Structures are given as C-alpha cells and as structure tokens.
C-alpha cells in the first residue's frame, strides 16, 4: 500500500488546520504556512503524475477496509493529471492572494486550503458517496471564499449560487440513492460491474439515476441550460478566488467523463452510452451562448466568466464525440483553458485594481501604471484564451477539429468552434481597446500597491501556457494515453475490485 495517493488530501488539510490554529490573527504566519502547503502539494502531485504516467492504476483503501466496503481512493492518469492542474493553478493563485487579497476577511488561507482539499479529493475518490462528500467540502469552501471580503455584489451572487448548489446536492444524493438501491454498492468500479449485469426491467430506474447524476455534474460544469449562475458568481469573486473557481467547473467535466466512461459507458448494459446523444449538441449550444454572452458583456470579469462558459462548451464538445481522439483533445484543451482563464482572471484583477470606481467596466478610464507591460500580458493571454497561434489554445483547438473531422457531427463541431473562435477574438479585442487605448486623460489611476508581486503570478500562469505549447508533444501523448486508459474501464474495475465475483 502506497500512501502517496492520500497526500494531496492530507497536506492541504494539515495546512488548513495549522494556518487557522498556529497563525491565529497573524497573517504573515498564515501566508508562510499556506505557501509551504502549496509547494508540498505541488511536489506530491508531480510525483503522482510520474507514477500514473507509467500506466499504473493504484487503489488505496482508506483505513485498510477492502473495496467495495471501505472508501477507496484511485489514482489513474486522469486523476493524477487533474490533481497536478489543481495544485499548479491554486499555487499561483495563492501567490497572487498573498499580495493583499487575503487580508480583506478572516481565515482566507484556511478556506483556500480546504478548497484545494475538496477539489483534489473529488479527483482521487473512487466512491460515489465520497465524491458527494468532497463536493460538499469544495462547495462550502467556495461559498465562503466567494463571500470573502463581503460586498453587496458578492452577497447577491452568493445567494443564487448557494441555493442552486444546495438543490444540486439534493439531486446528487437522490441519484446516488437510486444507484445504490439498484446495484447495492457505492464503489464506482464495483457499480460499473453491477450495472453491466442489470436486467432490462431495471432500465428505467438506472437511466433515471444516471440522468440525475449527469444533471448535477452538468450544473457544476455550467452546461446549457444550467449555466446562468456562473457569470455573476465568477465576476463577483476576487481575482485569486475566481482563478481557483476556474478549476471548479472542471470538477464537473471530470465527473461527467468518469461516470460516462466507467459506469455508463459502452459496456453499461441497459444504461450504455447514456450521455452520447445529447452531450455534443448541448456542448455546442453552450459554446455559442457563452461566446455571445462574452461579446455582450460590458464588464471585464463578466466577459472572462462567459469565456469560461464557452471553453466548457469546447471541451465538452470534444469529449462528447466519445472517441479516443476526441477525449484526448478535450483533456489537452481542458488543461490549457483552465490555466489561460485563470491567468486572465488574475490579470483582470491587476488591471481593475488601478481603475478605481470604474472597476472592470469597459469604459474609457485613466491610463494605467505600467501600461505597456500590462498591455503585452493582456495581448498574450488573449491570444491564449481565444486560441490563436502560436500558443497552446490554438493547438488544443486543432486537436479538437482534427478529432471531429471524420465524425458524423464533424460539420457542426467545425462550424461552431471556428465561428466562436472568431467572435472570441473580437470580444477580447474590444475589451483590450477599451482598457488600454481609449484613455480618459483627466482621470488619474488609483494607486495600486505591490503590482509587481501580482504580475509575477500572472507571468507564472503564462509560463505554464508557454510550457504547454513547448511540450505539446509529450502532453498530447499523455492525454492520448489517458483517453485510452479511460476507454478501457475493465483494467480499472479489476484493479479496484479484484474479486468482483466473490463479493456478489
């Protein structure tokens, strides 16, 4: 038994507890603890990717209770990749937050580490009810982080966000209950084996259970028609929190991908391929509506939030093809778009902090301090987000188009992805012109203390984007291997429940 798997959950938990107890009221101590925790989690995540890269699937039975009776944590390529993404993005967001964002309320570092814990846990767990528990951990910390440094706008967005997610949690438990009632297990691998054997008389129940779960995950992934909550929530949150929220939506994508390949995949018996007919059309509509929303927004944070909706559409369209190439392309694009949109949120934080009353409104404002540096950064990030060459967004979109070329729905994927890319360029160009060129020379920028440290975090994010571009070959190979691994769920099932027959 190897205890490395549980470190991305334990280290943030310890960090959170030490930060809240040891650093009581002393923000400096909390910052050091939180940053050290971030470094340690990042190190463990890299080690996990190294392990999973060889193709191994590790199962870890918490408390040494054998699966399927205990809680199992599972490491495969997909979960390792997601944990590394979370650790890297959250560490850079933390670097930004320690420049002063964390002083606007109490216990920022505790909440932040609990958020990381919840996200990492959701990626690593192999148990459906445990997934619900980690969802609640990450949601509760996200509610508190959203309201951190309470403003009226955050309260307004928070009420909607919390109520919607509570309804979602209720539906999640309903779905879990239905699946448990039918299969008598909560372990995802074991459930996959059981669902495949269900008689046709249970078809209606298992499909209803599956759809309930998928609706909940679609709510997290901001899929049409349940995406309306996202723009106001993400634009109301402070910059580092919004950057971490960029990963939250990917938890939904991860969960959709996991259950639709493992439990309700091609071998899912009466619930086989349940998401296939509707995921792709819904994803394309999400992409189109997200882009129109971004184009119509008059405020920078809202524009970026809508671009996140659009990027969710892009990656779910690729995954919705349900071919190995499609899933691989979707995974590469997911890594890219999470990092790029997090970078854009952080950069928007730097820019809006200098615009005083105007904030993120796309109106003529004062000429910014370090105008040229911020302009170059904005230009680079915009290229990455819109998917123009030479950065990884372009490569991601090329992979997606390439995967769609032989598919029956290929025409729609090509049309929508290309058209929305053009509109995204227009959107970002408009925003850039409003922020950097149309200056109102009579206004002076409000002083923005310690811009340098914040810019370091943005540059770090962009460094990741650049690395994704340079190492696109190995990364694409890793995504392809991941897609192959999750398209072949039998290995996963056999690793976790070695004796499915015996446990019947």
């Amino acid at each position, binding site marked *: 038994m190897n205890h490395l798997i549980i470190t991305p959950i334990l280290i943030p938990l310890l960090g959170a507890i030490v930060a809240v107890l040891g650093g009581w009221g002393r923000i400096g101590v909390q910052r050091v603890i939180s940053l050290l925790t971030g470094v340690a989690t990042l190190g463990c995540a890299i080690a996990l990717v190294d392990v999973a890269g060889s193709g191994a699937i590790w199962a870890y039975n918490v408390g040494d209770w054998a699966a399927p009776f205990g809680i199992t944590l599972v490491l495969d390529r997909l979960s390792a990749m997601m944990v590394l993404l979370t650790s890297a993005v959250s560490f850079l967001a933390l670097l930004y937050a320690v420049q002063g964002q964390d002083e606007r309320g109490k216990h920022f570092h505790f909440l932040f580490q609990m958020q990381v814990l919840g996200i990492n846990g959701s990626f690593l767990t192999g148990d459906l*009810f445990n997934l*619900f*528990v980690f969802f*609640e951990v990450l949601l*509760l910390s996200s*509610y508190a982080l959203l*309201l951190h440094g*309470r403003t*009226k706008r955050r*309260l*307004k967005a*928070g*009420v*909607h966000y*919390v*109520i919607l997610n*509570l*309804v979602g*949690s*209720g539906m999640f*438990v*309903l779905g*879990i*209950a*239905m699946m*448990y*009632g039918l299969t*008598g297990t*909560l372990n995802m691998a074991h459930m996959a084996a059981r669902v495949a054997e269900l008689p046709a008389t249970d078809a209606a129940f298992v499909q209803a259970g599956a759809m309930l779960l998928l609706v909940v995950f679609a709510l997290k992934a901001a899929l049409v028609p349940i995406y309306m909550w996202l723009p106001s929530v993400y634009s109301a949150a402070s910059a580092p929190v919004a950057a971490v929220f960029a990963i939250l939506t990917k938890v939904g994508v991860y969960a959709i991908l996991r259950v639709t390949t493992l439990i309700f995949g091609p071998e899912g018996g009466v619930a086989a391929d349940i998401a296939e007919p509707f995921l792709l059309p819904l994803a394309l509509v999400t992409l189109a509506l997200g882009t129109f929303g971004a184009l119509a927004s008059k405020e920078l944070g809202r524009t970026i939030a809508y671009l996140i909706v659009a990027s969710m559409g892009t990656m779910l369209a690729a995954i919705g093809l349900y071919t190995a190439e499609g899933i691989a392309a979707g995974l590469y694009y997911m890594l890219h778009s999470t990092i790029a949109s997090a970078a854009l949120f952080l950069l928007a934080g730097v820019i809006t902090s200098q615009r005083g009353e105007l904030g993120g409104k796309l109106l003529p404002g004062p000429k910014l301090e370090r105008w040229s540096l911020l302009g170059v950064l904005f230009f680079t990030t915009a290229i990455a987000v819109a998917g123009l060459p030479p950065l990884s967004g372009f490569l991601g979109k090329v992979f997606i188009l390439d995967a769609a070329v032989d598919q029956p729905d290929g025409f729609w994927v090509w049309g929508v992805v290309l058209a929305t890319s053009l509109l995204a360029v227009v959107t970002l160009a408009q925003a850039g012109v409003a922020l950097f060129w149309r200056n109102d020379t009579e206004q002076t920028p409000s002083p923005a203390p310690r811009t340098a440290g914040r810019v370091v975090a943005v540059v770090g994010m962009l460094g990741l984007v650049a690395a994704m571009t340079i190492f696109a070959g190995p990364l694409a190979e890793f995504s392809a291997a991941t897609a192959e691994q999750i398209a072949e769920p039998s290995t996963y099932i056999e690793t976790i429940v070695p004796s499915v027959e015996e446990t019947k």
Partner: protein
Amino acid sequence: MEALIAVAVGVLVASGIYLMLRGRTFPVILGLALFAYAVNLFLFVMGRLTLEGAPILREGMETAAYTDPLPQALVLTAIVIGFAMTAFVMVLAIASYTDLETDHVDGEEPES
C-alpha cells in the same frame, strides 16, 4: 409501508419545490429543508424496508430478517452535511437581508 413512504417523499418534494420557487429567502430555505428531508428519507429506504431486521450479522444468527446498515450510515452523513448547509444558507440570508435591505433572492425588490 412502501406506499406510505412513497407518498411522504412525493408530498415533501412537491412542497419543497413549490417553496423553493418563491421569491423570498425564508420560504426558499424552508423549501430546501423539506427537499433535503425527502432526499434523506429516499436514501434511507434504499436498503429496502424490513421490520425487525438485524443490521449487522454475527455467527449463528438468523439471517432471514436482515436490514442493510449502509443507507443508515449514508443518511447520517447526508443529514450532517444538510444541516451545516442549511445553517450556512440561513446566515447568508440574514447577511444579505441586513446588507441589501431586502429578503428577495435577487437581492433587490422586483419592479411591479
């Protein structure tokens, strides 16, 4: 007993959804609570309904009446989480009422 439980779950869900669709935070929170009760009840009966069944089997025991202990453990967890979430949304509703001076879920009075 099955029919009774099914009716109870149905009535709770219907009332919960009706209240959740109201425009004020207090009825919405009540609706969420009712919905959570329905969900917990549903989860609880997923181990099938048995009377006087033993939840844990020991050697030499009559196994004819056996009740699944796992849903009971699950529902306990779900109740604890639901309770914390209700408390949180309650505090949030009070905070938004004092700060925004309205108990409407949109944070502003609708124009009518």
